[in-house]
């Protein structure tokens, strides 16, 4: 195998310096024209010949290194016979003479093969000496040699200023106020801009994704990403913290927050799912994300079989899973799922075990301060209430004596629970002509089972020692019932007493307190009292009743007052908790100890009227404390616990236990280190391997993606995959030079960014000449900039920023802007309703928008933001009618237009100066004369129409939450709003040129 010898330690020095490079010159020809029938795919292989492996090609004599005459390949590609020529005519493929010559030259040179470019460690190439100061410009110039093209002129200053501001912060120049790269790189908005890119890779979202897609808080992780870019954290450290922050020697809270990277994957709490299946899904997804986000490699295919295009094996896939097997988690977040065997949150002080696994509270600095203050105040007050004063002691003595008096002199009595008011509940019929007490009795008549529930909810009744429960009934002598039942709701309905035959199904069969038989039915034709000791229906002293049910089988019965028969002494004692109760009884007996006094006094302090204000204040402070605690954000974190066993799953089948047990290891073909050693490797080792200077993929993947942020395309066009299925870079030397520079700068992200944007290449105009457009439609030469539609989030940010609505708050909980009603209609378990923010959170940046995976906000979705179910390296840039509808009619944009118009109207009376301001804000240029005329006409037409229908004008300017100024002419504002809407909807507005 050609890959097995490849390790970090092996370099293919000189590969790129050779006169002909297999990767650059030969592979594309063979790949395009030959591999389909003579490549890795066994099923479609012709003549048993494969040309993708040197040995195989030589064995079949297709290639004889150095010998053109004996090489069949040369014969066939040059044949003039239709039946012989390769590629065959029906393939519609044809080699050019230049390609034929290249192949011949290559065979002459010995037909050397190379491993895939991105699997070879990058070596810093020499910068071509073409007279430019900036290395990037020299590389691009080298690529232009012989193309007949040159770099385009720099764009005009206004365009560059607008470009730089958008590219570095995602915000318009109007808000940032500068195009100075250093100032913009130092702005906190730089971190936000970079986070939009990173969060796609990290598949960060606010919800669980699978099934019910519920909300769980991981927003501190999002803020960690923003802050890391702002602090210019070295990229290797950034990677390491996310994969293994929890494994650091003394992890900081920030390290733990970073480790949420491993936990923001989709999880399920669907009833009935299998723990094991979902654990397998989570592990597989983590390997996909880890390889995709950090390595720019797609290992996903290896879940079921060895990779078809890249040398990743299924064993590599599962060995990488094993790195994550120590993560404290469940598969099914239901009662059936279980955490790793032996995992115990008690071993992780400071962490909680939330609904979705371990979490960490992450208070903001303000919250931390407030909490300390509230707690201090509370403790001070509590200490104060514990002090004895003569007034308190005298009141205490008085209270004790009163209680004692009640106990000694008390008599049994009825306490009514239910009277007239509750009887008609549940729509029951009542009578007034035959009642036991009050003015109503309830009548229940039925051939069989009939039941009504009556409510004591408003005044839950606490039972005391020796209580009897009673209800008055009148049985119709002409139509007597067969059975009567009283039911009491304590913590459930299992408290039943019954009289007569055993026909009512509730509790039937039991002889316990949930189905207590009292005796025969009472006499008919008169009011009788049904009585049952509370204890015998399972309601001891201290129990609370909130509801009763009158149940009968057949007949006609009047039901009236219900209550309990009790006595004061019991009531007094029941009102005390165990310790003061015992103490009071000791006092009664005349032998109180000091301890008894203390208990009673302690109790008294909780009810003493003189302490009421202090108690109220304490209650309020407690509430504040709770509020601060519950409003503190928390995040899922990675905790390391007992690793699960990882086996290779044949065909990815989690039910198949036959695979070999695997330990953590890095992909074999890429590593000589990172293989299983005596000590089990950890995620920290994985991070070290990924961020090793020798890893050929990590820096290239990141550099390529950062390049794409500033040009719209990567130097290798496939941002997801640098492997065989990816794209040969347009400028491989430049990519390698940048990657090496990045690593050697100490993985300095801001350095890399600054390097790119200070090049001439970056500052070129994006207007292509027709000839350049024709000859290089995909801009492979980089002889111009690429115009780029803004990403979804920045389209929103721009509209809010130019109108002055944007709330620039950095980080924090997610925001919920306007969203069409019913958009969550299909979200289930439970059903839920979107609650938009009606405060300043309405106007936060797009990256803070609530990210509901299964129903992503339609604005984000329409403009190609991914749902973040999976690691996403590149967004599409679509152009659809749905986008037009969104920008036209989403209240966010209508409101932004209206608020912008309000400012224009306030600042200038005439439309022309208004347009000057608006153009400057949106497009950073003055309007042309033609534009001015066009928009003035539009304004005048709208003005005329709104004058005729001022009510419509008022309606339009009422869109959104933002307040209207007191003195405003609705017609003028509405007409101006139409103009600003038109401007916000321009392609130029949402494009960075």
């Amino acid at each position, binding site marked *: 195998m050609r890959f097995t010898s490849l390790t970090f330690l092996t370099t293919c020095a000189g590969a790129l310096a050779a006169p002909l490079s297999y990767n650059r010159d030969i592979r594309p020809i063979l790949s395009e024209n030959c591999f389909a029938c003579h490549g890795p795919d066994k099923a479609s292989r012709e003549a048993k010949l494969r040309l993708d492996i040197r040995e195989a090609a030589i064995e079949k004599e297709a290639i004889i290194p150095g010998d053109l005459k004996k090489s069949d390949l040369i014969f066939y590609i040059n044949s003039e016979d239709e039946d012989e020529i390769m590629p065959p005519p029906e393939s519609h493929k044809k080699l050019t003479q230049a390609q034929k010559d290249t192949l011949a030259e290559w065979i002459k040179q010995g037909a050397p093969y190379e491993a895939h470019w991105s699997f070879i460690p990058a070596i810093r190439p020499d910068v071509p000496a073409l007279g430019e100061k900036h290395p990037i410009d020299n590389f691009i110039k080298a690529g232009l040699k012989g193309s007949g093209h040159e770099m385009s002129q720099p764009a005009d200053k206004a365009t560059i200023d607008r470009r730089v501001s958008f590219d570095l912060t995602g915000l318009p120049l109007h808000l940032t106020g500068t195009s100075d790269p250093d100032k913009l790189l130092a702005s906190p908005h730089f971190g936000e801009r970079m986070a939009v890119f990173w969060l796609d890779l990290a598949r960060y979202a606010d919800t669980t994704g699978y099934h019910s897609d519920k909300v769980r808080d991981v927003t501190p992780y999002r803020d960690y990403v923003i802050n890391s870019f702002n602090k210019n954290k070295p990229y290797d450290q950034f990677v390491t913290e996310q994969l293994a922050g929890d494994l650091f020697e003394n992890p900081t809270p920030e390290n733990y927050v970073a480790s949420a990277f491993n936990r923001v994957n989709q999880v399920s709490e669907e009833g009935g799912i299998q723990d094991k299946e979902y654990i397998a899904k989570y592990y597989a997804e983590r390997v996909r994300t880890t390889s995709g986000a950090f390595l720019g490699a797609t290992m996903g295919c290896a879940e079921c079989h060895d990779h078809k295009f890249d040398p990743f094996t299924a064993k590599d896939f599962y060995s990488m899973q094993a790195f994550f097997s120590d993560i404290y988690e469940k598969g099914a977040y239901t009662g059936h799922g279980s955490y790793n065997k032996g995992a115990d949150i008690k071993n992780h002080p400071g962490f909680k075990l939330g609904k979705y696994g371990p979490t960490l509270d992450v208070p903001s600095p303000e919250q931390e301060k407030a909490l300390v203050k509230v707690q201090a105040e509370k403790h001070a007050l509590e200490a104060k209430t514990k002090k004895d004063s003569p007034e308190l002691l005298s009141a205490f003595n008085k209270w004790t004596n009163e209680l004692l008096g009640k106990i000694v002199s008390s008599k049994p009595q009825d306490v009514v629970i239910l009277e007239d008011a509750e009887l008609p509940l549940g729509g029951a019929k009542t009578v007034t002509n035959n009642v036991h007490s009050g003015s109503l009795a309830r009548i229940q008549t039925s051939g069989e089972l009939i039941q009504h529930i009556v409510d004591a909810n408003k005044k839950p009744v606490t039972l005391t020692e020796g209580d009897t429960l009673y209800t008055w009934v009148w049985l119709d002598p002409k139509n007597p019932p067969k059975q009567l039942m009283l039911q009491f709701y304590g913590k459930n309905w299992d408290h039943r007493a019954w009289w007569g035959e055993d026909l009512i199904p509730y509790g039937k069969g039991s002889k316990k307190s949930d189905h207590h038989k009292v005796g025969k039915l009472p006499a008919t034709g008169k009011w009788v009292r049904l009585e049952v000791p509370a204890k015998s229906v399972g309601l001891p002293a201290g129990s609370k009743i909130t509801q009763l049910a009158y149940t009968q089988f057949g007949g006609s019965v009047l039901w009236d007052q219900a209550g309990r028969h009790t006595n004061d002494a019991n009531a007094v004692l029941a009102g005390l908790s165990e310790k003061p109760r015992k103490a009071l009884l000791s006092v009664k007996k005349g032998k109180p100890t000091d301890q008894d006094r203390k208990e009673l006094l302690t109790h008294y302090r909780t009810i003493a009227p003189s302490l009421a204000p202090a108690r109220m204040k304490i209650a309020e402070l407690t509430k504040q404390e709770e509020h601060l605690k519950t409003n503190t954000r928390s995040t899922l974190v990675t905790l390391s616990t007992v690793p699960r066993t990882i086996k290779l799953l044949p065909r990815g089948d989690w039910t198949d236990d036959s695979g070999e047990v695997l330990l953590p290891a890095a992909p074999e073909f890429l590593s000589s280190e990172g293989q299983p050693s005596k000590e089990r490797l950890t995620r920290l080792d994985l991070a070290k391997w990924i961020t090793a200077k020798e890893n050929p993929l990590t820096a290239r993947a990141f550099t390529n993606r950062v390049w794409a942020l500033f040009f719209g395309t990567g130097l290798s066009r496939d941002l997801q995959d640098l492997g065989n299925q990816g794209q040969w870079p347009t400028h491989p030397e430049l990519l390698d030079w940048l990657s090496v520079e990045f690593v050697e700068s100490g993985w300095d992200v801001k350095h890399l960014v600054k390097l790119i944007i200070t090049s001439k290449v970056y500052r070129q105009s994006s207007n292509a000449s027709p000839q350049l457009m024709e000859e290089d439609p995909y801009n492979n030469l980089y002889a111009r900039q690429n115009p780029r539609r803004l990403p979804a989030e920045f389209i929103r940010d721009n509209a809010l920023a130019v109108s002055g609505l944007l709330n620039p708050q950095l980080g924090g909980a997610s925001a919920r802007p306007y969203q*069409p009603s019913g958009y969550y209609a299909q979200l289930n378990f439970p059903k839920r309703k979107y609650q938009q923010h009606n405060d300043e959170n309405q106007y936060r940046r797009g990256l803070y928008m609530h990210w509901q995976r299964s129903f992503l906000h339609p604005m984000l979705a329409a403009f190609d933001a991914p749902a973040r179910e999976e690691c996403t390296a590149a967004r599409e840039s679509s*152009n*659809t*009618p749905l986008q037009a509808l969104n920008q036209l*009619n989403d209240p966010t944009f209508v409101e932004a237009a209206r608020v912008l118009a309000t400012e224009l109207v306030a600042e200038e009376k005439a439309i022309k100066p208004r347009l000057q301001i608006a153009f400057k804000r949106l497009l950073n240029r003055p309007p042309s004369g033609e534009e001015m005329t066009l928009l003035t006409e539009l304004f005048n037409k709208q003005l005329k129409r709104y004058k005729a229908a001022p009510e419509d004008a008022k309606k339009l300017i009422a869109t959104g939450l933002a307040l209207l100024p007191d003195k405003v002419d609705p017609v003028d504002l509405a007409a101006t709003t139409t*103009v600003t809407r038109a401007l916000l909807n321009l392609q130029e507005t949402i494009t960075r040129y």
Partner: protein
Amino acid sequence: MNPLLERQYLVNRRQFFSKSSTGIGVAALASLLGQESQADGAELPAAIKRVAPKAKRVILLFQNGGPSHLELFDHKPELKKRHGQSVPASYMEGKRFSTMSAAADKRKLLSPIEPYKQYGKSGAWVSDLMPYTGKIADDICFIKSMHTEQVNHAPAINFFLSGNQLAGRPTAGAWLSYGLGSMNENLPTFAVMTSISKGTTCGQIFYDSYWSSGFLPSRHQGVKFRAGESPVLYINNPKGMNSKLRRNMLDGIAQLNERKLAEVGDPEISTRIAQYEMAYRMQTSVPELADISGESKATLEQYGPSVNEPGTFARNCLLARRLVERGTRFVQLMHAGWDQHRSLTTELYNQCRDTDQPSAALVSDLKSRGLLEDTLVIWAGEFGRTPFIQGSFDNRPKWGRDHHPHAYTIWMAGGGVKPGISYGASDDIGFNAVEDKVHVHDLQATILHLLGIDHEKLTYKFQGRHYRLTDVHGHVVKPILA
């Protein structure tokens, strides 16, 4: 719109396309230029035309999850007889089973759960689970020898819809939009609706890639319609903006965009202009489309009671008819929930209840309106299910079948397909397609053929390669052509 401006558009678009027409097929160019080259088969450029088109439009009733061919349409008395026996090793020999985890003798055959009956003049065997489909058996053509290359849902669905297992290639609807253009300027050329049966535990996600335009211009991607008051999101104007004012504003936007286009020649601007026009027209046409109050009681009843509930498969079938009536080229309905790993005896009944009657009703409804002749209806999933059991024989409520790519059944109706026939066959236990095998690429080639397109000629160059729906494969299945 002002005719002068209209002309200006065309001039600009022509300029753009002549500038960069290297990557765009002539037919696509013609269609992008709009109504004037109204894509009627007769006017298709010879480059992609092979035969007169039989179909002008397609309704794809896609059944996500892999409906069990053995339970529904592929009648196998032998499978019933051999219930509980092992799969004979010969069925698996030489097949791509290397990745299968267990040997043949561990796979036990499972009898279909419901009996079959013969229907109509054609005598087609259809399961009792699909009585309504049975009744239209003489109008449809079953293909019982379908086979695919993918065994998991998303890859197999992508494969079926786009010819490639990975997301990112244009789907059939997008290819047709690109190749044939629009027949109605007021509605999307390619419309998508999704639904899922109530009580489905294993619902697949509807990925956007299922209606993606891939590397084709994004205007060809499917437009998703939703249930409820606003069938397309943000279709309604803000309050206080009537249609005159809106038109006036849109003209302003168009003129300003035009100016920029003239200045910088960015093709995205011309697309944007077209999209705003389409958005404007949709604001009238979409609410009209979604309003079914004009449908007769008889029609509604035909589709079954759930037609009254927005978002159901039945409602979507009715809307599909309304869309093709109005000239939408490709309507893609996707109904999830057919993944019966452990729910053959339970959830499969829900699936059939929710899809059988509406699918049949759609065919009959199209027929009675004379639309079936040139509308191709396709009922298909991404693969079939294994003849052997998943689960345990003692636990009938959990019986299931696994994914199975080697044989499955689909049906087609109208649009130039022979009615009342059954084409191809699987072996006696429905394991492998054995007779007149039809690969997914063959089906794709056939669909394009019915629309008058040579599948080898409809290509788009991307990343240095000419791509097509059928990749480098596919043969038109001629025996099923009417």
